[in-house]
């Protein structure tokens, strides 16, 4: 037998830290695509299955979808500079936010605007980056939510720092960090996971495997059958879960967050999902994927699945749906009005926060710009 087989045999001598990977092609799941409990699926704790909890989750899913749809409209109307939609991935956005308490930190990417509003950040502030109005529109400390990160995987080490800081401070807060599947190929992803494991920092790494990095499919991103397997190399738990199954996601995240909070260190979670829209409004997905594939995933829509389950269990009915419809409509209404008015921009802003105190050189440049434009409003009109 080959040495590979030999060491595979010895594999049985696995030690405690040796976490077994989740590379069965079927991820952890509770609901089948029709919203019925799948057999052989996970057995969530009672409170995960509490109808009130699930209904709250469903409302959040509907809300995220509504927000995402409205943002997509706004970008088409030219009210946003660009918008990366999370349509189809709402369960990940909701599960992540619902898994955290107010003192926990969330590290979102450009794709996770829905998570920001779910966290409570007003839509105009959440979309400031994508509107092109500023790089970040909310106070990260107030919301314990870092600015949306664009350089892929670079937020990973920030999560390690936040987690390590909490641990050293004796605080119970956890840092949950979003990544995309493509980002797992970046060096920063590796350095973050490895360091978090060494520090046993309270961090949850949540990879939304939506099958694509812009146009690049997963099989060109990794040769492994599961992104969760990377956890083994870091000596941390790794789980692969159905990213369109809010119940399974909730259970997996709860376990990971609890472990982190209890001092059990980081966890890597791969949520298998799908990006229903193009990468952004500027992308043309027809160049690299078949509509049949999209159709396949539409049939596994996270909202419909939970909706059917809740309807079947009687927790959801037409009246509640109507209620939710109305809430969402009111919210989007407000979004439209808020985005209709363009705020005033002033060139001084560029110089305000480069340093705590502007250098003499910056003050001189600010004077130059003021001399050119007088008030920024004219400048903006330019």
């Amino acid at each position, binding site marked *: 037998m080959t040495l590979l087989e030999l060491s595979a045999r010895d594999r049985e001598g696995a030690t405690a830290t040796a976490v077994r990977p989740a590379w069965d092609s079927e991820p952890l799941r509770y609901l089948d695509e029709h919203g019925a409990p799948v057999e052989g699926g996970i057995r969530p704790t009672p409170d995960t299955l509490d109808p009130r909890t699930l209904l709250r989750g469903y409302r959040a899913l509907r809300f995220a979808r509504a927000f995402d749809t409205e943002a997509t409209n706004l970008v088409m109307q030219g009210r946003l500079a660009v918008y990366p939609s999370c349509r189809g991935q709402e369960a990940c956005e909701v599960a992540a936010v619902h898994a955290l308490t107010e003192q926990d930190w969330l590290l979102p990417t450009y794709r996770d605007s829905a998570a920001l509003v779910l966290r409570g950040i007003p839509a105009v502030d959440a979309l400031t980056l994508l509107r092109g109005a500023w790089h970040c529109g909310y106070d990260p400390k107030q919301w314990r939510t870092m600015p949306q990160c664009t350089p892929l995987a670079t937020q990973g080490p920030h999560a390690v720092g936040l987690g390590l800081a909490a641990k050293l401070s004796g605080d119970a807060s956890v840092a949950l960090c979003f990544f995309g599947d493509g980002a797992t190929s970046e060096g920063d992803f590796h350095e973050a996971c490895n360091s978090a494991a060494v520090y046993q920092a309270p961090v949850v790494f949540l990879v939304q495997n939506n099958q694509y*990095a812009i146009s690049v499919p997963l099989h060109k991103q990794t040769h492994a059958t599961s992104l969760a397997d990377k956890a083994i190399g870091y000596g941390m738990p790794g789980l692969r879960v159905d990213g369109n199954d809010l119940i399974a996601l909730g259970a997996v995240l709860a376990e990971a967050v609890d472990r982190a909070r209890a001092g059990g260190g980081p966890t890597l979670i791969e949520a298998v999902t799908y990006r229903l829209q193009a990468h952004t409004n500027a992308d043309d997905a027809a*160049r690299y994927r078949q509509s049949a594939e999209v159709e396949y995933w539409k049939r596994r829509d996270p909202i419909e699945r939970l909706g059917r389950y809740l309807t079947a269990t009687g927790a959801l009915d037409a009246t509640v749906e109507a209620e939710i419809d109305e809430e969402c409509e009111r919210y989007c209404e407000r979004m439209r009005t808020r985005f209709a008015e363009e705020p005033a921009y002033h060139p001084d802003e560029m110089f305000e926060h480069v340093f705590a105190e502007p250098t003499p050189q910056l003050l001189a440049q600010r004077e130059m710009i003021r001399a050119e434009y007088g008030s920024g409003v004219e400048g903006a009109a330019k």
Partner: protein
Amino acid sequence: MSAASSDAAVSAPAAPLTMAKAINAALSDAMAEDDKVVVFGEDVGALGGVFRVTDGLTAKFGEERCFDTPLAEASIMGTAIGMAVYGFKPVVEMQFDAFAYPAFEQVFSHLAKMRNRTRGAVSVPVVVRIPYGGGIGGVEHHSDSSESYFAHTPGLHVVTPSTVEDAYSLLREAIDSPDPVIFFEPKRLYWGKANVALPVHTGRIGTAAVRRQGTHATLVCYGQTVPVCMAAAERAAQEGIELEVLDLRSLVPLDDAAIERSVGRTGRAIVVHESVGFGGFGAELAARIAERCFYQLEAPVTRVAGLDVPFPPPKYEHWYLPDADRVLDAVDRAMSAG
């Protein structure tokens, strides 16, 4: 040599062509002529790149000649170095300026040094394509001008076209070069058209081009600020001020002779670039001009550059970017001095 390559040899009739298409043609022609030329990077295959610059190359030359890589810039750069050592001529794409940063260690510590390290035994003819600069309404990290970092690093050639012809010609030159070349593509000019018959050759790397002749002052620029300076010169001419516009095209090697020739005549120089001014490449230009043309200068060399702040959001970038007004203000200062 394949059919495609002989196509490349005979010049096509002049037709309106965008810079993006000219770059695409340069890649295609180079790949057709030399099967050691390979193109890779993020989304350069089926998608043809986020700017469509590599559009159709995979279809034309196959997955082995133009392919998508895993999302890892250091690895893209290092893989290119390894392939170049083996005998290939890799042309890699960094999707946006700021996304070349993760590859800096590979560039600074290996790409730039391999020839010197091995006393010339190993050359690494890699071309690194980097779309750079602002003015396209990009959110943060999508509008940086990072040429100053590379130009300060010995062992790298750094070039950037401002015209459709140069985009084609400089890229062909870069691919032919035995040295690593950082090829900065002014993304705001991607869609500018010109009537060009390909193939076209506009000169060797290291030679600047006078875009407009003038007598009163010299505007030294490159990439995206060349059209800005041309517009400024246009307006100045209406007031009787003749500005010479010198398009450097190549930052390394730098065409000192052309700069001295022009400034020696005009006695006034304004350096214009989009990159952050402080410690930027314009500082090198201003310092050289002030040192070498000391006795000819009638006014201080002034710089019109990006502000010393992080590149601002889309709603603010028109204040940040050097425009004709700002260039003309500098010209006024230079003309009224001395």
